[in-house]
């Protein structure tokens, strides 16, 4: 909320200056976002008198002035203003002054051959208005040589204060003054309740048919007004608060809104037909509002309507049709109490933000409805003339005072502060709370304007706020007893481990958006979670895979000419059955650049990805030797060059070449391989690993090579598993070291060569032993369809 210091001083007697007030506001929890003093930028400008004004020898429209700025050394100034003349007083800026309205810094310069030492300024040049027809003319008694801003009353710092949603009472300058006074920054001036002489009953009958939306509707008519411009002081206050001065009637409602946080509405009685009723809107009713937009209403909304039309979206914005104008003669002033929840819901449904809404939806002071109406009516009569009617009242105000039980020990318990009960009582009283201190617990009556105070903890906050939150002393958190346990969960530890592993293996960690486009989601299995209100179509569906994000990242990096891209991300996939922590990895472009040793660059292959995935799974404690490869992986992968890795029946990971269509759609021409590990599918690591005593074999291991012919549909993994199974005690490893098709190998077959490692347990193997082993290896291979190569 923006307001000038002078407005605050209307309600608060204080010797404090702007810095002290700003400091106090901060201490109170009213965050000062900025203080701007218009006088600061006008500091270089002084009151000066034109001593002489002669025609410019080279230009008809210019004049050469001699200007006295009070230092006894008149300066020569070239000026183009038609009203510049000898004897007048105006505002002068010397060379070096920055002119706020035009953004230039004045210099001594020759204008058409005549030296000019500064400028006599117009209103616009000083950012004080739109007038640029001539230079500012000051009255004859203006003191030459004095700073202009101070003399003109512009030394009025403007505060911009952020009001938290709970503090409705500070949505008006008066409430802020009340809070400052409670802190001891000055004295709150008493509100003057005007004595009103009325002329008779209110000519417009009013009613509320919607007591849940508008519990109370109060009004007074003022007849015979003249709605001219408002007086200078009111225009200045509003302008400095960032509002435009419109007319006296409109300015008065704005004065109450900003000054007291009390929105009012003024109707031109000539434009009403019949009485005014607060009621629910009828579905489809429309209103052209004061902001020039037309709103379509429904029966969840409260409106004020006459016999023929809606005139006000209750508590949010009035209608154009019944608004006041320069010709308005008779007005009805509405002061209502609207239900905060209704205002919030209506405002959200209409997407309509207004000063009135922001005050009503937080809940205005129900005790200040009638006084505000009286003060406003008196102000209208004062500024616009006219006669005031009796007050018309419909409905009833929520006026039951609320009380709380309160134990002053709570301040120590919650805040760790020691504040004497008497002091607590004093502080609460300063804020308008009424305290009955005996017996315990205290009975505390909440002032009508503090709707936000609902419980004892709120009273603690009030006391802490006034006593000074800076008095809270740090107290060390007691250490938890017992042996320290890991504070991270197994999943977090797994993620940390994999993150460091992937980085160590050369990949860079990315964090990409959790939401992707519907098209991307569909290509990667479909995203069941959609956003109702996405920022854009590109960020509309929660990702079912991390790969679209990495693919888009690869595309951006490729566009930046990165030759080799290794990216990984640890994040969640969002599926119908929940959120699944996932490691995704993508390799694109060169895995090894061309080099003087190995020649050509090497592109990423699916087996590079397999190596990464297996390394990650091994680091995660998965028994990788028991994994089975199932081809192919999900449809976003290449159908012939991708696979799932399963343990038992559990899918742990997928990897492979991405489908060429995916790459084309992502606009990528690089070879790309990718993989995802489903971290929540991995078997849990079981506690700490137990290590039996180390007993190395005394016997040398032996190696035997076998070459088999097998159908090319046979998974090599199946052959290896069969060979290993041939003698589980003796065979410790079997590894494929060659794969060959071509001359000597029949079509549809493949030659696979295996190195088998044997580890004798208790005695050296004999030739007969080896012969028997070979036979069982060959027999095991035969069972999966592989024949020893002759």
């Amino acid at each position, binding site marked *: 909320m923006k307001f000038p210091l002078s407005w605050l001083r209307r309600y608060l007697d204080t010797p404090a200056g702007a*810095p002290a007030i*700003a400091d106090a506001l*901060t201490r109170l*929890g009213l*965050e000062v976002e900025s203080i701007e003093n218009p006088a600061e930028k006008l500091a270089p400008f002084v009151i000066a008198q034109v001593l002489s004004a002669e025609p410019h020898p080279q230009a008809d429209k210019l004049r050469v002035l001699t200007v006295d700025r009070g230092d006894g050394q008149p300066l020569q100034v070239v000026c183009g203003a038609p009203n510049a003349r000898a004897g007048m007083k105006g505002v002068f800026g010397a060379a070096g002054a920055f002119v706020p309205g035009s953004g230039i810094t004045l210099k001594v310069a020759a204008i058409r051959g005549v030296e000019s030492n500064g400028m006599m300024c117009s209103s616009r040049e000083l950012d004080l208005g739109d007038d640029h027809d001539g230079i500012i003319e000051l009255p004859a008694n203006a003191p030459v040589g004095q700073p202009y801003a101070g003399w003109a009353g512009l030394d009025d710092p403007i505060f911009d204060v952020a009001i*938290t*949603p*709970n503090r409705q009472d500070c949505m008006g300058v008066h409430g802020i003054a009340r809070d400052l006074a409670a802190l001891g920054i000055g004295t709150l001036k008493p509100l003057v309740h005007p004595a009103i002489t009325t002329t008779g009953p209110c000519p417009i009958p009013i009613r509320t048919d919607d007591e849940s939306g508008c519990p109370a509707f109060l009004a007074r008519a003022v007849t015979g007004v003249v709605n001219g411009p408002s007086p200078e002081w009111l225009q200045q206050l509003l302008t400095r608060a960032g509002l435009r001065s419109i007319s006296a009637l409109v300015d008065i409602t704005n004065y109450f809104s900003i000054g007291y946080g009390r929105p009012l509405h003024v109707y031109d009685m000539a434009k009403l037909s019949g009485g005014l009723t607060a009621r629910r809107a009828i579905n489809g009713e429309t209103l052209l509002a004061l902001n020039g937009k037309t709103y379509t209403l429904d029966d969840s909304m409260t409106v004020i309507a006459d016999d023929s039309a809606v005139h006000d979206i209750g508590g949010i914005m009035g209608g154009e049709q019944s608004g006041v104008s320069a010709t308005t003669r008779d007005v009805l002033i509405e002061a209502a109490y609207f239900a905060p929840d209704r205002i*919030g819901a209506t405002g*959200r449904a209409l997407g309509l933000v207004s000063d009135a809404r922001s005050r009503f939806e*937080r809940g205005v002071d129900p005790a200040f409805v009638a006084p505000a109406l009286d003060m406003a009516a008196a102000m209208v009569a004062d500024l616009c003339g006219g006669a005031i009617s009796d007050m018309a009242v419909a409905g009833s105000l929520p006026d039951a005072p609320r009380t709380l039980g309160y134990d002053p020990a709570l301040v120590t318990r*919650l*805040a*760790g502060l020691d504040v004497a009960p008497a002091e607590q009582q004093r502080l609460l009283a300063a804020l308008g709370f009424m305290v009955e201190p005996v017996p315990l617990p205290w009975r505390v009556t909440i002032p009508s304007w503090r709707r936000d105070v609902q419980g004892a903890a709120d009273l603690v906050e009030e006391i*802490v706020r006034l006593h000074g*939150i*800076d008095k*809270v*002393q*740090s*107290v*060390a958190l007691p250490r*938890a007893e017992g042996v320290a346990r890991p504070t*991270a*969960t197994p999943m*977090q530890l797994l993620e940390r481990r994999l*993150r460091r592993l992937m980085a*160590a293996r*050369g*990949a*860079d960690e990315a*964090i*990409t*958006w*959790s939401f992707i486009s519907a098209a991307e989601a569909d290509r990667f299995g479909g995203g*069941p*979670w959609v*956003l*109702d*209100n*996405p*920022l854009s179509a590109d960020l509309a569906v*929660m990702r079912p895979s991390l790969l679209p994000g*990495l693919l888009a*990242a690869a595309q*951006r990096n490729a566009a*930046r000419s*990165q030759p*080799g*891209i290794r*990216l*990984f991300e*640890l*994040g*969640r996939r969002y599926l*119908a059955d*929940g*959120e699944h922590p996932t490691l995704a990895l993508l390799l694109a472009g060169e895995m*090894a650049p061309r*080099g003087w040793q190995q020649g050509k660059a090497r592109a990423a292959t699916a087996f590079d990805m397999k190596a990464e995935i297996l390394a990650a799974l091994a680091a995660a404690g998965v028994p990788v030797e028991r994994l089975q490869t199932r081809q192919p992986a999900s449809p976003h992968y290449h159908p012939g060059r991708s696979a799932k890795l399963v343990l038992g029946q559990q899918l742990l990971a997928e990897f492979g070449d991405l489908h060429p269509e995916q790459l084309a759609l992502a606009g990528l021409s690089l070879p790309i391989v990718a993989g995802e590990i489903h971290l929540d599918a991995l078997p849990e690591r079981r506690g700490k690993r137990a290590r039996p005593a180390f007993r190395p074999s005394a016997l040398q291991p032996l190696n035997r090579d076998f070459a088999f012919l097998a159908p090319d549909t046979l998974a090599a993994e199946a052959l290896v598993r069969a060979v290993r199974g041939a003698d589980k005690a003796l065979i410790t490893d079997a590894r494929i070291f060659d794969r060959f098709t071509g001359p000597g190998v029949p079509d549809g077959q493949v030659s696979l060569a295996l190195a088998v490692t044997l580890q004798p347990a208790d005695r050296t193997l004999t030739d007969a032993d080896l012969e028997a082993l070979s036979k069982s290896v060959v027999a095991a291979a035969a069972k999966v369809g592989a024949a020893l190569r002759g």
Partner: protein
Amino acid sequence: MDEMLESQLQSLMAAIERAETVADLREAELKALGRKGLLPAEMAKLGSLAPDARVERAKLLNRHKADMADVVATRLATLEKAALTARLAAERIDMSLPADSAPQGSVHPISQVMDELAEIFADLGLFVATGPEIEDDWHNFTALNIPPEHPARAMHDTFYARLAGGEQPEPAGDEQPEPAGDQQSEPAGDRQRYVLRTHTSPVQIRTMMAQKPPIRIIAPGRVYRSDSDATHTPMFHQVEGLVIDRGIHMGHLKWTLETFVKAFFEVDDVILRLRPSFFPFTEPSVEVDVGCSWEGGTLKVGGSNPVVGSSASSGSWLEILGAGMVHPRVIANCGLDPDEWQGFAFGCGIDRLAMLKYGMTDLRAFFDADLRWLKHYGFASLDVPTLSGGLSQ
């Protein structure tokens, strides 16, 4: 005869010492020591000598044999050494040629900062907790004392989510006890309306519902607001802290935050300023500013004693987090008795912490995956933050 032998031996020895190749050496050796060589031939003649002379003569010949063998061995060693030297010289390559370098990966600054936070708070006994990012309305708002029409909802630009095709999700995570007390009667639709969590605070609710106090947790993670400009991204990261026990008060909160800020920024002279503020789920609520100073155009945490509102001062306050005592209604909503259990909560933007500590200026770059940025601001895999090894890398 001896003179003759001596001269023959001299000449053979000279041949050995002159030998330029191993082959020349072997030939000379053969002439001296081979089966038909000079010395074996002389030995063969010993039988014809008188016994006394034979002994003398044998001694002499054996000495010559040993000398000759020594000379051969010495020469052989010399030749081998020379051959090796020559071979090694021929094998020289330019060692300034580049080696194949292993690619260097990196850890994202957000992850690094999360690890730092976990480490700092582990020392204070705070466990790391998590919760769903697609959260129901009740956990994200209502349970946190933000009922549906509360103006505070306007502080959060919320993304609303639903399952396409009208499926109903399985309830996420915990089983919730009935809310205690008469507070916050819970609209039935609340748990079927989904949002992307707007803060990490719902993890407070889930934790308090799932475990008995004392509770000490931090909850780092992704959060979402429908806001996008130079300083806001629709997805960012927060860390939540929650300590619930008997007798935990604002003094403990202040100490915890001071300890955290000092440890995180690794400065001793940190001044924190608590300002009264408002969050629906804490009461009293505070916003926390940290004293900063400008040094050569960059903001440094700690150091000066800032003066508010004074632009001339080199010091200034920087708002870094929000905190407060957990609202009694929130504690009651989780099925705990607020007269018995109380404590504090705080929330802080991780991205902002990272920017402040490590000097990034553009938030959007965090999520762009530009390899140049990742390698510039990222961390080496072994730069694991630990208390014993230091948190900053």
